[in-house]
């Protein structure tokens, strides 16, 4: 972790560290490093993450929050696993404006991100630049275009089927 924080400071990337206590008899601190970066520096930071960790950083998932005017993408990573109680969560937070929804792909750096990127693409309508495979992952092929289930605006699904009403 120290190496990563040092490198982040060198590159002038801001971060915060959150801690949460876990455990009953033996207390340990669970650390989360939150890094807020603009879209342009996403790939740079991921490369930094790969360089500064002993093993490969583990990419967990990409989550999405819609705040109305802007949206937030959180790339969840974990680093330093394999050693008891030393693992940390790393969250890369990218904020995007609603009228400019684009992020670069990470698939060439970490191949395991492909499923997450395909999911983000179909669920939120964010365009992933240079994605090698842009098909639907979890929605049916004929799911209507322009409907994005995770969004909280006019593009969220309007007509949902209420099974408890039709069951009789």
């Amino acid at each position: 972790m120290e190496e990563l924080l040092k490198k982040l400071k060198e590159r002038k990337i801001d971060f915060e560290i959150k801690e949460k206590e876990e455990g009953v008899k033996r207390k340990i601190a669970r650390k989360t490093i939150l890094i807020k970066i603009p879209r342009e520096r996403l790939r740079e930071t991921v490369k930094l993450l790969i360089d500064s960790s002993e093993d490969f950083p583990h990419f967990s998932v990409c989550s999405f929050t819609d705040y109305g005017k802007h949206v937030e993408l959180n790339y969840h990573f974990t680093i330093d696993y394999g050693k008891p109680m030393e693992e940390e969560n790393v969250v890369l937070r990218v904020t995007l404006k609603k009228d400019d929804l684009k992020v670069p792909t990470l698939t060439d750096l970490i191949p395991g991100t492909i499923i997450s990127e395909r999911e983000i693409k179909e669920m939120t309508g964010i365009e992933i630049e240079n994605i090698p495979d842009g098909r639907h992952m979890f929605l049916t092929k004929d799911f209507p275009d322009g409907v994005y289930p995770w969004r909280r605006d006019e593009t969220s699904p309007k007509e949902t089927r209420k099974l408890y009403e039709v069951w009789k």
Partner: protein
Amino acid sequence: MRYEIPIGPIHPALKEPILLQLSVEGEEIKEVDVIASQNHRGIEWIGMNRNNPIQSLYIAERVCGICNISHPSALVLAVEEAMDLEVPERAQYIRVIQCELERIHSHLLWAGVAAHEIGFDSLLHYTWKVREKVMDILELVNGNRVTKAIMMYGGVRRDIKKEHIPKIRKMLQYYKEGFDKLAKFFLEDKTIEMRTRNVGILTKEDALKLAAVGPTTRASGVKKDVRQDQAYFAYPDFDVKAITPDMLTGKVVGDTYDRIVVRLLEVKQSVEIIERALDEMPGGEITSQPKIAKLLVDLKRADGEGIGRHEAPRGEVIHYVNLKSGFEPFYSWKIRAPTYNNIMSWIPMLKGCQIADVPIVAASIDPCISCTNRAIRIANGRKEMLSKEDLHRLSVEKTKKLMRGG
């Protein structure tokens, strides 16, 4: 000459829908594509729009019916972080016991399915018979054989009664005595070794790059286990060690056989953890907020975000939750199930395998398609298509052929 063979979507290896598109030359698989859109129920949408957080706990439980405590565990961890909720000590121990009971049942279930995939049905029946013991205990402490409905924000819903403890200990004793026998059937039997050794290899490098989790990655030699790396609940007290196959066999190959080794050793580890947890369990309350109405109000007022990580039998589960005060459902919610990451590791595993190996290799990551929270489809009947039955038949034939020494 290349042929395209779709396998699935109604049961390729498990009883779940997913479509594997294989390109084969002769018997050898050259390319693999996975299409997983058949089990999608829109669970995140449900939690973000329709449900209050307490209802979402039960939706989380039904993300996957087999590992139905993993998702609620991760969710309560995330929500407790977001709203700074205290959890009593006894509740943390009960959670650990429940999680480990589930690991025993899930790994035994998998072992049975794996035996079935290579045509060893008598071992399937034997394993499932052994598994019934833990199912009885689950029913005893939870009131239902499968869904546990025990997690609640700030604690658990049910205590483990005093009169249940001797029964649980009896079950643990049964598994301790039966473990060597089970290990002998799975690890020393010629049939299983022939079909699983050097089949479906996932190298350490691939496992890291494809972000594989759980027994799949541990079998490739990556010591990654949330219970060890970033312990939660009462796990710091138990000092859990990640299990890799070299602990038993002395080497790491990363094949299907190694995945069997890891899972069997984990059953043994779980038995030990439960035993210690029962010995050391403190007394006291089981929840910090017993009034549901009050809890609902608190949840509505809460503001913040949290990440919950839990080691499910199949690997790591992550829930990300964002709560906004005055807004009842989760403001955002993301579920990451273990199979979600492990699916991609099918591609390097299956390349170079024979078609007859597809069932056992596909089953070896313990796929849980409904966990992945998405959906299925029926294979196109006009193309050349292998049904589950044909595939199973091929697999059984290969076992027979190998046994004849051919």
